[in-house]
């Protein structure tokens, strides 16, 4: 791996980590985007997109409602794409998805940590905020955004470092890699199906889902 690529990966992972909550929410944090662009950086967009799609199917389950906790798939997809890039066919996909899911879970905890730190910081300066001091408000707020940038950068660095180790010392043999890929794709489709069923609980959703399934199935068979 070239050090320039590493730098771009770190920058991209930090941006998508920030996008999830703190800055923008234009949804570059979605694994489809985060993984595909990481794949482009690594010269293998197809591998990046495949692992991105696997994680994106997982993300179809999400309900980021209110304060609920949710996995952070952005930096995770960057790490996962780093594992998958360059491996033949779908062989690296399972291992990549497994690392991606573990990192997404770690990301969830890092968000919890971040929110605690934000709360502590604001509580310490609350007297000034209650006086309506604009510069304190701006400083506390922007510091918290920078803190999330730090969180995202560390998360990406850890993920990419583990990914490079996994590429260097592959822990699974051919049979294991196939098994893991099959399981990861199956689980992703399963979670996606459960998400689709949940979407279908709206009034006309059931018919819409059935129509979509038939059309998609027909497309696959007729092509």
């Amino acid at each position, binding site marked *: 791996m070239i050090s320039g690529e590493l730098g771009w990966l770190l920058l991209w992972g930090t941006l998508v980590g920030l996008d999830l909550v703190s800055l923008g929410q234009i949804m570059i944090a979605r694994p489809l985007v985060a993984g595909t662009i990481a794949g482009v950086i690594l010269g293998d967009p197809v591998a990046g997109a495949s692992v991105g799609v696997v994680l994106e199917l997982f993300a179809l389950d999400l309900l980021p409602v209110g304060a609920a906790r949710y996995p952070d798939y952005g930096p995770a997809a960057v790490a996962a794409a780093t594992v998958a890039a360059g491996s033949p066919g779908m062989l690296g996909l399972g291992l990549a998805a497994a690392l991606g899911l573990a990192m997404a879970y770690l990301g969830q905890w890092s968000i919890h940590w971040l929110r605690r730190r934000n709360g502590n910081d604001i509580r310490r300066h609350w007297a000034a905020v209650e006086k309506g001091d604009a510069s304190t408000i701006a400083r506390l707020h922007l510091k918290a955004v920078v803190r999330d940038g730090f969180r995202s950068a560390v998360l990406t660095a850890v993920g990419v470092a583990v990914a490079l180790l996994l590429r260097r010392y592959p822990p699974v043999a051919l049979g294991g890699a196939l098994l893991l890929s099959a*399981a990861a*794709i*199956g689980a992703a489709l399963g979670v996606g199906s459960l998400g689709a069923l949940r979407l279908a609980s709206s009034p006309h959703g059931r018919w819409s889902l059935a129509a979509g399934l038939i059309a998609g199935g027909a497309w696959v068979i007729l092509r």
Partner: protein
Amino acid sequence: MKLDQFRAWLRLFTVQGSWNYDRMVGLGLAFSMEPLLRTLSGGKENPRYREGLARAAQFFNAHPYFVGLAAGSLARAEHLGSSREEVDRLRTALVGPLGSVGDRLFWIGWLPLCSALGIVGAALVSPVAGAVLFLALYNVLHLSIRYWTLAVGWRMGPGVAAALGSSVFRRVPGIVAAAAAGAAGFVLPVAAAWLTGDLPQGSRFGTALVLAVCVIVGRWLLPSAGATRVGMAIVAAAAVVGLLWRW
């Protein structure tokens, strides 16, 4: 849009930046509203400038794309000289509805719809085309809503409830969710075919088996666990087996 409103609009992109469990996006709301309070008569010397900021920084939460509506209408209420009690009641009453509308319209409607179309694009056209299609489609509505919420909040001030026209926001999310269900239905077989295209026959059988197990466990055996946790547990178990499998 005037310069102060444009500033507030830009700041609203960071509105969740200081999210915390105590007051959630309260501080973000105060930060985003600040440019709109500068234009109070007398500017920063007007006592309502500081009072308004302090009020805004109290507990607040809503869908991030809809916080602009609160920022606009609360700032306008300060300009109009509404009483402290009126501003507080307005803020409290905006929390839940703006969260609910946003969650239903975006998180369980427009986002999964665009996501499914993006996956279809990646599988049928090209990886980059899928990602670009998703981003472009999603953000047309996202950025329009961000613009509209701030503008209507500022224009209507404390009377913003009437402007929301409840029937549109009650009905549209359901229609979008139904469309998302259809798109999700279409994407499942397409993604399955694309992802398993290179796998040998035996592995494809394994994929189908895992898919079935995941749906049965997530839907009927352990629905309270949540689909993500069920899927993650299956992949973790497969990873352990895969690491031990030595041929």
